[in-house]
């Protein structure tokens, strides 16, 4: 059984959607972990779900950065375990320095709630294996999803194949119109150097059933079951 931890900070709201999404995938079990006592031992992968952790006060993801859960997450990521942050989770990963760059207010200042197309630019993450070049359709819902980084950092992301998802139109072209928030180079998702940490603004957990408008999120999330060799469950201390 592959065990996936879903981190819950005060204000996180997508952890139950992730739980529902992973319930569609065979061989996975999930547990929601409260940020104050998040112990990631015994888990094979971790999710930082979306929401408004700490009300987005100071900056989106800023206060979550110094939460105990994020310290545990940093160690978990250093061990090479798969980590995925979506939406506010992506913002937290950037704030925590697990991913480069930052996410600022959308260029149009509007909260964007819509469906977008993203092209998979890299299959070198446990989450995107077998998806290289695929155009996926996923929902977004964010006010601060404009990815920025200094030009050198962006050049390095591009040169090292660390841009994982790019906003594109339905035909797969990265046009200005297809960019919902003004992100540099239409960047929708990036990975760390080792490849185990992925952050993206779209919500894969909200598109795992045809009934809800799409199943492309399933293709990303189901990968983790294949990528991870199940570990022996950690002893339970009570």
């Amino acid at each position, binding site marked *: 059984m592959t065990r996936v931890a879903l981190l819950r900070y005060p204000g996180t709201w997508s952890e139950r959607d992730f739980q529902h999404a992973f319930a569609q995938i065979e061989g996975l079990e999930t547990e929601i972990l409260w940020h104050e006592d998040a112990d990631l031992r015994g888990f094979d992968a971790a999710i930082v779900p979306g929401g408004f952790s700490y009300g987005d006060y100071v900056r989106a993801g*800023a206060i979550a950065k110094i939460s105990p859960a994020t310290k545990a997450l940093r160690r978990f990521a250093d061990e090479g375990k798969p980590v995925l942050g979506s939406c506010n989770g992506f913002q937290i990963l950037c704030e925590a320095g697990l991913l480069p760059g930052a996410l600022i207010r959308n260029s149009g200042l509007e909260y964007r709630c819509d469906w977008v197309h993203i092209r998979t630019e890299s299959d070198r993450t446990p989450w995107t294996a077998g998806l290289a070049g695929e155009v996926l359709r996923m929902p977004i819902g964010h006010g601060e999803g404009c990815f*920025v980084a*200094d030009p050198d950092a962006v050049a390095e992301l591009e040169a090292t194949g660390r841009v994982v998802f790019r906003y594109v139109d339905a035909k797969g072209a990265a046009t200005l119109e297809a960019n919902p928030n*003004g992100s540099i180079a239409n960047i929708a998702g990036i990975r760390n150097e080792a490849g185990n940490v992925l952050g993206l603004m779209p919500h894969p957990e909200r598109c795992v059933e045809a009934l809800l408008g799409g199943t492309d999120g399933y293709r990303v999330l189901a990968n983790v079951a294949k990528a991870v060799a199940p570990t022996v469950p950690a002893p339970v201390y009570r």
Partner: protein
Amino acid sequence: MRYIATLHVRTKPEIRDPQGEAALGALRSLGLEVTRVRTGKEIVVTFEATDEASANDAVRTMGNELLANPVIEDVEYDLVAGQPA
């Protein structure tokens, strides 16, 4: 010893400031010849420290670790000893 730090957090010049751009458009619509608007925030922190050097260290930690994101923001501060207003 009580200190009061006022941190001024501004978006780095090379980073887009959509809020400033929106204010720019609005100010122009008032008929003003405005060419650039940059927004930021001011954060006032009252805290205890043993002396001025450690107070400065504490403010830098506040700025670097939480109150500003060095990727996108610059931070400057004023520090005074005394009681809050």
